[in-house]
């Protein structure tokens, strides 16, 4: 296996999968908050959109194994984390 492919398969992809589990759970939480809080004290839209976008890209990273796309997803996850916290 080539070095870049090994790097993608053994490190970037598992890392993206970890990010996917985190953003997936966070997205469910944000969805729940939207459903639970009443209109007067509704939650901000930004975390939900951020989580949703990150989840979609990270879910795509399981199918598309291109090293550049995997690297992009890692960076995107880091940016999403900064926005969320």
């Amino acid at each position, binding site marked *: 296996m080539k070095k870049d492919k090994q790097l993608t398969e053994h490190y970037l992809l598992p890392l993206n999968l*970890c990010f996917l589990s985190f953003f997936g*759970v966070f997205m*469910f939480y944000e969805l729940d908050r939207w459903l639970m809080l009443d209109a007067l004290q509704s939650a901000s839209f930004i975390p939900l959109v951020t989580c949703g976008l990150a989840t979609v890209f990270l879910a795509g990273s399981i199918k598309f194994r291109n090293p550049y796309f995997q690297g992009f997803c890692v960076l995107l996850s880091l940016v999403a984390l900064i926005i969320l916290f």
Partner: protein
Amino acid sequence: MAAKKSKNLLWKIHQWIGLYVGIVIAALSLTGAVAVFIPEIDAFLERGYELKEIGDSYAPMNGIISQVQLENPGFRVLGAMPPAKATDPLILNIFLEAGVKDSKRFQVFINPYTGAILGQKNHTDSLSNYLRQIHVRLMDAWWGRQLVGLAGIGLFVLCVTGLLIYGQFMKNQLFGAIRKKNLRLLMADWHKMVGMAALLFNLMIAGTGAWLGLQPILIKAFDIKAPNTFVRTEKISSPEVDLDQEYDFWKAVEAAKAQIPGFIPTQVIPSKNGTNTIEVKGDAGHLPFEPHISQVVLDKTSLEILDVYDIRERAFSDKFYYMQEGLHFGRFGGIFLKIAYALLAITSGVLSITGFFIYLIRKKKTAEEKDLVKKTIFIYSISTITLIILLGLITVFIGYAYATLLMTPAVYIFLFCFISYRLFSYWKKESLSKEPIHEKG
């Protein structure tokens, strides 16, 4: 060479900890996945107490308490749970102190508009209490909780060592590729993929679980103080007078709501030690903190605000302290988050079973030996699930005290026999290896 040695060591740590902690992790995984839904289970079982008609004003609390005490002599009121919505009943928690076997905790459901008692439930023998007790302390008061804490540490070490040896086991394999050549490879591939997918979640569950399990010991050892411990210093009356002191429950709840934005009161606890206070505890904002952690303390007579604790306004250290239970049980979210939590909770059980399978089958050559491994795994899994269901049935239909009386000695006898057997096997192996070769012949 040194790198290979350290990887072998990591693999050995992963293997041995997995073998010894795996069965506890599997049981905790299963019970944890169900325990996430405790509020939903309670709501379903208590659906009969939902009010059909709502009134204009609430009945006075003092009359309600007197009636409850009249119908349950000897019980003392621990606190009350105000209705979250208009059709919810008011719930009074009452307790009878009568030794280990006969102590009882009941929940009395009351129509808050008329003061009529709708019914009562034995909380000690309830399904929700069973799920909590088996997950938190394996139904044993002190040692069970420590075992759960140690299993949390074990799971944490397993996650870290698993991550470190992961690359070595992948070699030229593509991520997510499941080989179906034989059952061992199939299980090994699922073990790696599920382990990586749920790594972050399992690390969080392990860390928070270890803290929650070992909390009593750690708090004592490191002199850690719980952040939210407001206590009125002066005693206003004697405990007897304090216990009988009348107060306006509904006004206290409204006063507390006004102090914290978005506050949902979940518990009202009157003082019994002469401090003449009411603690209104609750949640705010659906944030990942321990339930009932924000609180307003009022004077019982004048309803003067004595202390306000809004977790959202507190320092990071307070938030971190109270985040452990919130994150661990996932009850801060709604049904979507709980389903996600339950699915992820099952992964540690799947990892235990697949890991155990990989270990047992690795040196088995013949089809008979492999079949025996499959049977062993099946029997272990079914026995664990049957035991959990059986204990649940005993708790609900006979009593929690009887279930613990059965469970606690059984666990200790099993542990004693297992450790003795392992020590004997080790001693026998050691003494055989010391024998000179010519004597063996």
